[in-house]
Every structure is written in C-alpha cells, then in structure tokens.
C-alpha cells in the first residue's frame, strides 16, 4: 500500500478510540481506493446497480478522515479519490447548472458504480481462474517423456554455373598471381653430415674436402649448397673431435682427415 509507518501512529491511536466506528480504520488490507470503495459498497448490502453513490462517498470520506487521524500520510491514490468524491458529492447535492459543460453528476455517479461493478466482476473471474485445476498442482503431464528428436539432414545445393565459375575464378586467379620459383635443390646439413660420416672411413690421410664433394655435385647449381652444408658439417665433426680440419692459406683448399684415436667420450660408449 505504500503507507509510511509513522512514528506518531501509536500516540494518535490512543487518542482516537471510537467504539461506534462501523469499520476498522486500517488501509493495509486494501488494494487501492477502488478496492476500499468496493468493500464499503458491499457493506451497503445492496446490488451495486442500486448503490447509493452519495452514501458511499460519505462513507469513504469519513473513512479517510479517520484514517488520516491514524496516519498523517496517506497514499496519494486515496486522497485523489477523496477529493474527487467530495466534488461528486457537492455536484450531487447542488442543483444542476443550467448549461452543463461537464458530464452531469448522475452520469459521473453511474460511471463510478460501473467501475466498481467491473472490479467486482474481474475479482470474481480471478477467483474462478484460481480455483481451476492447475498444472503441477492438480493436473500432471507425463513425468518422464522420451522427447521427440528432429535430426537435421543438410541438403546441399549448388548449380553447375556455381561449379564452373568457382573453377574458372580460382584457376584464373592462380594463373595470374602464381609466381613459381624454380625449385632450389638444397643440401641440408643433416644430409651433408650423414654423407660425410659414411665416407669418413676412406679418409685416413689428409684429403681435400672438394674431392669428397665431387661425388655429390651433379650440377654446378648445387655446388654452393653442397659446399656450404658440408663445410658446416665438418665443423661439427671437428668440434666432436672426430676429424681434423686444416687450411694452409686464405681461400686455399680445406684438408680433412679422420682422427686415428677415437676420443675417450666415444670409446666409452
């Protein structure tokens, strides 16, 4: 209801005890002014169609007055309704103005009665709805349904044109952008080393490295890569102490020879 609990409530409460009051001045149970009006109307114990709006307005205003003594602050909804009912009451009591610019008091009253009736009906409907057997409370679906499956079976679609244009598109693209380099034959370090190790047995005495290479070089274009890789491989073998390498002068031929005594590390193996 949004009513503020007021600190002064108890004090005021003590002062106004009215045993004659026909109703409890407590708004907490009401869902707004229309609900309050409906409750008051019900106490008239007549059909809503024949309700006395004037009497109802009086009751409402008295109730609100009383309520304000209990709580200084009332929800705006209630006060707006009170103001409107006070206005309606004055209109109902005074003779109708000669030239009616506003709806006459009787139809305003009828309209209010109609709204109350509408609220009453929808309440009844809500109650009926709530009384219906409900799923999960009174009605139960199958406890353990197996479930239905939908398996998607893709159906691929493509036209011959799609196929041909896809083919032409990429063949053309590749034909124009494809720069083909001549495949370079590269002699890897591993290959060179393997080859060297295989023929080391022949090189007990000092031999020129290029003599070895001759066996491997089949075309002049390969000479560079073979020489470079083999040279690196010889350095590795020197480091391992398996061969000796010698060069007598700058840019002179490289001499290599197998070490006669295997190094202790290898002997141990």
């Amino acid at each position: 209801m949004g009513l503020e609990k007021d600190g002064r409530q108890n004090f005021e409460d003590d002062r106004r005890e009215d045993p004659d009051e026909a109703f409890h001045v407590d708004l907490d149970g009401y869902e707004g002014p229309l609900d309050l009006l409906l409750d008051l109307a019900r106490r008239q114990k007549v059909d809503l169609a024949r309700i006395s709006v004037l009497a109802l307005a009086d009751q409402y205003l008295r109730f609100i007055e009383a309520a304000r003594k209990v709580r200084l602050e009332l929800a705006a909804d209630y006060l707006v309704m009170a103001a409107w009912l006070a206005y309606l009451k004055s209109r109902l009591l005074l003779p109708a103005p000669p030239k009616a610019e506003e709806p006459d008091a009787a139809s305003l009253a009828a309209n209010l009665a109609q709204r109350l009736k509408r609220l009453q009906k929808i309440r009844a409907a809500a109650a009926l709805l709530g009384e219906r057997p409900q799923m999960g409370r009174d009605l139960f679906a199958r406890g353990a349904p197996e479930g239905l499956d939908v398996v998607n079976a893709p159906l691929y679609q493509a036209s011959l044109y799609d196929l041909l244009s896809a083919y032409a598109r990429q063949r053309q693209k590749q034909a124009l952008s494809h720069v083909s380099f001549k495949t370079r034959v590269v002699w890897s370090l591993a290959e060179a080393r393997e080859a060297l190790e295989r023929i080391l047995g022949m090189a007990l005495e000092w031999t020129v490295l290029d003599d070895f290479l001759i066996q491997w070089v089949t075309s002049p274009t390969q000479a560079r890569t073979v020489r470079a890789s083999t040279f690196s491989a010889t350095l590795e073998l020197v480091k391992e102490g398996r061969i000796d390498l010698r060069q007598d002068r700058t840019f002179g031929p490289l001499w290599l020879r197998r070490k006669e005594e295997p190094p202790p590390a290898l002997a141990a193996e």
Partner: protein
Amino acid sequence: MPDQDHLFDLRAADAASLLARETPSETQRAHMRLCEALVFAAEEPLGEEEMAKRLPEGADVAKALAYLKAEYFGRGVNLVRVGKKWFFRTAPDLAWALQREQVEPKKLSRAAMETLAIIAYHQPATRAEIEDIRGVALSKGTMDVLLETGWVRLRGRRRAPGRPVTFGTTDKFLLHFGLEQIADLPGLDDLKAAGLFDGRLPKGFGVPQPRDDSALMDDEEPLGDEPLGEAFAPDPSEGEAEES
C-alpha cells in the same frame, strides 16, 4: 470445479460418443497409435502440423486425434487440446491422489492474480487499462512475476499516444489452467453480458472478445526496438506503487 469444467467435460463426452457412432479403420488405428506415441513422448504440447510431418503423407491427423481423445475419455489420463496443440495429462478428478505433499506451488499474490485475470479477459491490455480497472498503480514487481510465470507475454504496442505496450496470455497460460482456448475462460460470458469492457469503444461497437492470437489486432503494432523499460516502470506521475 464449477461450470467451466462441466462444459469442458461435455465437449469431451461429445468426443467420446464419436467412437459409438464410428469405428476407426485399420489405417486410422495405425495413425492413432502414431499420434498417441508422439504426444506421449513429446516434452511439450505437440502441434498437429508437427504430427503430420511424422505421419504417413495424407494422414488425417485431426480425425486420429479426435478418435484418440474419445478413447481416453473417462480414463485416468486424458488427451487434451490447448490452442492448436495436444498433450496428455492426468484427469482433473484424480488431483487428490496425485498431489505431492512436499511441493506446494508458489501462489500468486492477489494483485498478480487480478492483473493476470484482467490481461486474460481483456487482452490485449495495456498497463493503463489494468490500472484503470484495479484503480491502483501497477507495481513493476507484479508484472515481473507474471512475465516470469510465462503465462503473460508482450504482444505489441497500442496505436495510441505513447504507444503503450500491450499484454496478452500465452499457450502456457492455457496449458496451466487447463483451457483449450481463451474463449473457455470461466465467467467470461458473465463479464461480457455485463458489457464491462466496452468502456473505450463507442456504443454499438460490441463487446470485445479477448484474443490471444499471435496476430496483432488492428490497433496494435509490433513491439519495435525501443526499450521496454517504461512498459513496466510505474507511471512517474504516480507517486505510490502498490506492493505486489
């Protein structure tokens, strides 16, 4: 379980008498078996189209379901239609034997129940219309609770100043309350007879029938992309919000 259920049972009885008049053919029996298995296995109410896709071409699904419904009349489990969908559920009169002690479903507050009723009987309804009938501002919480149940949905927007969001009920609502269609709402005739919802219509325009069609009505338009926040938030002009 007043009037409405009685009506519902009458319809079911009508269906039952179908089998007294007609005997399904062998083929129809086969289709009934399939529909029975499909609806039984489905986790949710099953549409006739979905069944048709799983039955032999040209099978009369509606007829098979009518026979099947008749066969289940008076049984402990009934075949029930909700909207255009079908499902099995326990018979209403056996509720006492089935109620599970531990689970007491959360009850809706009075405000929520009334708001739900207004939306159901008056749909499509705007927040302002709900507030007008109840004579009190609608709290955001109430609407949230209802949307959370899945019984209420946002339908669209009213073609009117402010383009307010319109609310309606869902198939889940029908399912939950055991209604075949929105026209089966209890007390609807009474409400219509009282002519209570024609306030916003000119005289002679007729009493609007609540509609939960997915199609928008003439005075509705799609939700669009605007944020929906304002649809739920209390009108800023109203200081107080009810507690829900």
